[in-house]
């Protein structure tokens, strides 16, 4: 009788363990899917941004020097090696080169949008110039929107990557090989212009110097 109980208990433990492992594997799988789809979106948004930048450069809204620099950065971003859809096979160096080109484009966009259009150098938040101005040049607006969308896509992609890395760092996941043969994903590390005037509603920088007053303020913001 006792042997039977022991057997039952062992089976129960095994079942619980199996369930736990399979649910972990499901989570890893779901996160991999998120990483892949968000990377595809990021690629699409970056392509759109580069096209919008090229369009802006040729629209006549900019001075010729800025336009040329922007066109150069945009074409470089478009020509940078694209990671193939099966991103796990991609050579790491490809991404590095790509991100460098995208950072340069962010820089060029920053310079172009800083002085173009309505002249206030602000993105969707017009830095306090009254009601939303519909009169801004279409090309400028499109480049700003595309720039913002690329920022969103990068954030969401990196969020997925960070969470995937976290889960895959767990010992159970590593030892149980729950991630299969999938490559470890990497964050898209480039300057997307966040915190620049044309995308000014976000900043990654430290809190502005509020002295001792800043401490309790941010500390209390639970």
């Amino acid at each position, binding site marked *: 009788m006792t042997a039977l109980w022991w057997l039952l208990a062992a089976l129960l433990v095994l079942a619980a363990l199996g369930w736990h492992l399979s*649910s972990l594997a499901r*989570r890893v*799988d*779901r*996160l991999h*899917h*998120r990483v892949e*789809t*968000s990377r*595809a*979106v990021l690629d*699409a*948004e970056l392509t759109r941004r580069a096209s919008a930048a090229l369009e802006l450069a040729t629209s006549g809204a900019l001075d010729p020097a800025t336009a040329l620099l922007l066109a150069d950065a945009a074409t470089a971003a478009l020509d940078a090696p694209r990671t193939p859809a099966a991103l796990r096979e991609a050579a790491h160096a490809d991404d590095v080169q790509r991100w460098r080109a995208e950072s340069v484009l962010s820089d060029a966009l920053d310079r172009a949008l800083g002085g173009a259009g309505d002249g206030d150098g602000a993105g*969707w*938040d*017009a*830095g*306090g*110039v*009254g*009601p*939303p101005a519909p009169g801004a040049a279409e090309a400028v607006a499109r480049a700003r*929107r595309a720039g*913002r*969308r690329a*920022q*969103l*896509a990068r*954030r*969401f992609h*990196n*969020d*997925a990557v*960070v*969470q995937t890395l*976290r*889960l895959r760092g767990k010992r159970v996941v590593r030892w149980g090989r729950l991630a299969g043969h999938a490559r470890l994903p990497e964050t898209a590390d480039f300057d997307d212009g966040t*915190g620049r005037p044309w995308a*000014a*509603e*976000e*900043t990654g*920088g430290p*809190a*502005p110097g*509020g002295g*001792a*007053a*800043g401490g*309790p*303020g*941010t*500390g*209390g*913001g*639970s």
Partner: protein
Amino acid sequence: MRIGLVCPYAFDVPGGVQFHVRDLAEHLLGLGHHVRVLAPGEDGDPHLPPFADAGGRVVAVPYNGSVARLSFGPVTAARVRRWVAEGAFDVLHVHEPVAPSTSLLALWAAQGPLVATFHTANLRSRALQAAFPLLRPGLEKVSARIAVSEDARRTLVEHVGGDAVVVPNGVFVDAFATAPARPAWSGTERAPVVAFVGRLDEPRKGLPLLCQVVPRVRAVVPGARFLVAGRGDAAAARALLDDPSAVEFLGAVPDADKRALLASADVYLAPHTGGESFGIVLVEAMAAGAAVVASDLGAFRRVLTGPDGGGEPVGELFTVGDADAAAAAVLRLLADAPRRRALAAAGRRAAWRYDWSRVAAEVLAVYETVRAAGGAR
């Protein structure tokens, strides 16, 4: 686009998250989208807006330091699952995803593209930290996280990991900018009006500090009037005052009255001592044209100095909890009408940054990004 919004708190008691969900839904409906809201409540609840569905029986539970009106349990869980399935939404947008109510249940039931907005980001509570392993699988489904402020985002990054984009809360700036002042609440040279809107019984909203500021201001400007609008026990609040007649308690006022109050006041005082992740009331006061004096909290500072925190503040900031500094700031503004007017004008311009037209466009950009990704499996 078919959009489903989930609010964790019942609409029968007003609150920031409920207002945000309601206003966002109204704005998106106005843009021609299909929008449904799910919130705690019984069928036929008169407090639910016409575009909202009842999520289940409301239970008042002490949660996170105050009493929250939530809905949970197997019946609610089944309802939420059905609502999510029948809604066939292109995007499901869950607000305050870790609140133990409809939001958390929707997170579990969700299949498609999922967006989550963290409002107060009370992610440091010990209960939440303990329960986190249980919440994580649900949170991992979220393809796009939104934080309402840089402060909320930082708490999220530190305590949960991952990242979020910042999309601020929205205000219908026009409604405040065009609100008519009310003669009974308008200040004069001799009797300027200082306004405060906030719950009386939550100390972190700063009413006790306001009560210390009152005598200090009236010592210099004896005629100064303090108008306080907000729910709570006015009698208990009066007990904090030496001269109970110095402060007029208006109780919980309807939206139109709140706008009129902010439009009438000379100075808006935000004496909060912490726990604010955004500060929507500051934006409302700015939109209505009141000169703002506010605690130097991170969230308030960012509203007043611009998102990158680098601009000239469009209001006066004082050290958190310092009644002398607060009174001095109020007195400075009361004595200097031109500066008051300049600050009010600058504040009104800055408030446009938070107009729903801009905020909703930003939210829609997030929706489109996650929709392109197709969401979690």
